[in-house]
């Protein structure tokens, strides 16, 4: 009999399990010493509101990666939708209807990605690469490459600086999205089925799981979260900018990977993805405070993603042995 020992935890697995926690703590300690402006309440407040967009997208990306898919279009779609919401308000549509409009649009875009991937049996990275190009192009075409300013103060205040029970609205949206995602993944039949699909798609199918429907739903949920991310992004920038979030896709995938997800599916955690997103947000914030230029920031983040992915593979091999 092939005796398989209980799950072995090798060195790489330990490093990996600790990565989001230890990484976050280490970064906070480092930036506190390296910069005079990092460790204070005002900066943390800004960090929280600024990272809301990233966290929402990372939550959605967790589901997508859990079922062994990927969505490369999110950054471009956020840019496009922030443009659309700004133009809608500029055209006189009330802010709440404008928000509703882009939420509908974003769910449609997500579902579109899902349908093409699942029904067309095309790898999602190709499908969403296409959507990304379309969204980027559309954002520039709609605006003539110029940012669309937002004049509606209600919109600007509500989704950036207003508070409910003392909690800034962006943070509140993040908390609701986080709790919802956590419950959905851990405590609903849908969530458990996603784990099954990611672990062994054929076994899931043969167990009567509606694999296609579930995957399309995952992309649509991703779309819904991307819609809210667009609202927060537009409100924070005060405009619809066609080139507003070039690093968002990279950051969201990095957050999920740092949070211990496997790109091969079946393994992902909402809590750890949140920590991963916070780690990226702290990194972004700290590097800005230290005046590290944007291009160098990319190099640092790229290295971190590679480190996380390599650790994941080594850890998987430790388990297989």
């Amino acid at each position, binding site marked *: 009999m092939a005796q398989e020992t209980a799950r072995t935890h090798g060195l790489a697995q330990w490093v990996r399990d600790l990565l989001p926690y230890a990484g976050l703590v280490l970064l906070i300690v480092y930036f506190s010493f390296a910069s005079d402006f990092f460790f204070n309440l005002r900066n943390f407040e800004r960090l929280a509101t600024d990272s809301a967009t990233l966290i929402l997208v990372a939550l959605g990306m967790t589901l997508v990666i859990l079922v062994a898919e990927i969505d490369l279009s999110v950054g471009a779609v956020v840019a496009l939708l922030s443009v659309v919401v700004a133009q809608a308000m500029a055209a006189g549509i009330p802010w709440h209807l404008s928000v509703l409009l882009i939420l509908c649009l974003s769910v449609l875009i997500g579902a579109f990605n899902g349908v093409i991937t699942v029904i067309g049996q095309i790898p999602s990275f190709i499908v969403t690469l296409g959507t990304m190009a379309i969204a980027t192009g559309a954002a520039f075409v709609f605006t003539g490459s110029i940012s669309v300013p937002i004049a509606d103060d209600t919109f600007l205040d509500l989704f950036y600086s207003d508070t409910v029970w003392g909690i800034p609205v962006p943070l509140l949206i993040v908390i609701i999205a986080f709790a919802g995602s956590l419950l959905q993944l851990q405590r609903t039949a849908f969530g458990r089925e996603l784990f*099954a699909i990611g672990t*062994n798609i054929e076994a899931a199918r043969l167990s009567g799981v509606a694999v296609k429907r579930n995957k399309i739903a995952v992309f649509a949920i991703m779309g819904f979260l991307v819609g809210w991310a667009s609202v927060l992004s537009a409100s924070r920038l005060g405009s619809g900018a066609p080139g507003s979030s070039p690093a968002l896709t990279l950051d969201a995938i990095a957050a999920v990977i740092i949070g211990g997800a496997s790109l091969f599916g079946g393994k992902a955690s909402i809590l750890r993805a949140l920590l991963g997103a916070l780690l990226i947000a702290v990194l972004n914030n700290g590097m800005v405070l230290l005046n590290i230029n944007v291009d160098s920031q990319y190099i640092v983040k790229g290295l971190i993603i590679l480190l996380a992915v390599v650790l994941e593979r080594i850890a998987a091999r430790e388990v297989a042995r």
Partner: protein
Amino acid sequence: MTESLELHAVSKRFPGVLALDGVSLRVLPGEVHAVMGENGAGKSTLMKIAAGIHTPDSGSIVLDGQSLTFRGPHDAALAGISTVFQELTVLENRDVAHNVMVGREPVRMGGLLVDRKSLYRQAQAVLDRLGIDLSAETPVASLSAGERQMIEIARACAVNPKVLILDEPTSSLGREEELVLFALIDRLRGQGTSIIYITHRMSEVFQLADRITVLRDGRRVATGPTGDFSKDSLIKAMVGRDVPERRHGVTVDNLPIALEAADLGRRGHVKNATFTLHAGEVLGVAGLMGAGRTELARLLAGIDRPDHGHMRLFGEEFAPSGVKDAAARGVAYVSEDRKQLGLLLSLTVADNIALPALRRFSGLAGLLSFTKLRAFARKWMEELSVKAKTPDTVVNTLSGGNQQKVVLAKWLSTEPRVLLLDEPTRGVDVGAKAEIHQRIRNLADSGVAVLAISSELPEILAISDRVLVMAQGRIAGIVNAEDATEESLLELAFSEMGADAA
């Protein structure tokens, strides 16, 4: 006459099974040596050792008096042993020449460029030498299954091997193509090539082979010139082992019909299957590898769609749109491949058992009740005596037998009316096997219609009321288990149903 290839006392152990136990095989120059045996007798393992894919645990490989060790298939090929495997491996979008010469393309300019002219010339020379009537420039995509098989053989022969191993080369061929292949084999034999020929088809052996070796349970039980064997004596040699205790068959005539199939078929796999499955019986399904047993079960389970024919389930039209649909109507299929198709190995026992029934546990606001879920999983773990500490134990830490019980628990928990079991005891130990057999019996006694596929004839005879035997995609016969013997089942399994088989 010196033997060109000798495998001497070769043994090979895989986890949980001794696949080969001191098997020796001598192949003379210019002979066709047939290797026969039931599924799992060790034929494939033996061939893979000769082909350098597996390393033997003990024993030696001697070619022309020289002892050899192979580190991989490449070493074996260099030594002069070429193998054509059962699965075709042609490069679909290249032409014949590229397929024949793959990995050996002639080069020019110091290896920078493929020398296309010599490539086509050399490939054509190989084809001509073998008498294969094809142009080297033909695209493979336009070739028939038989022609592709020829390309495979041409590829293996391009190096002028001393020994050519053919693993069931006719399994995908029609009658005409078979004859062309036989002529080719004759030609190779005339050129002094030794051929090891693995097949399930009795008639081919008597038509082609000079000598025959029979394997059973990893041992060699007979070797001799073809003339020393008859069809009966071959079958006896392949089977000959102790028959376990038999059960007394129930008379199915009085039992209600659960599932009927009429003229059911799927191109290339299942042909004109007509049979009934009664509630309360165990219908064993026997047949050789590739006879279409799993494919038949997949049609019944809604995994694949039939091309023709229809089914009725308890008298109602039954045309499932998928597994979900079939499961909802009480038809459950337990796959033969529990690791790939049955289990979520890195998830828990509870995750696995509850998967088909998951949506039943959604309560308020769609939230699952983990208390109910665990209780449910625990109940079915106990029911099947799955040996795991808790429902939260990860499945890949369990033994093969317990994993199989988890798969069974998963489907029994849906309380099926029709249960399709595909190799329900593959890779499980003796104790778990007996438990699973008893469970199958109890299920049938409680009125479930059970269809059980097995490659082990003793198992089939031990658990079945009736046995359905498949051969080459067709139902070769349905017999009462009481009247059946391993010999009679094997004879049906080897039966060939006319020239229209392809």
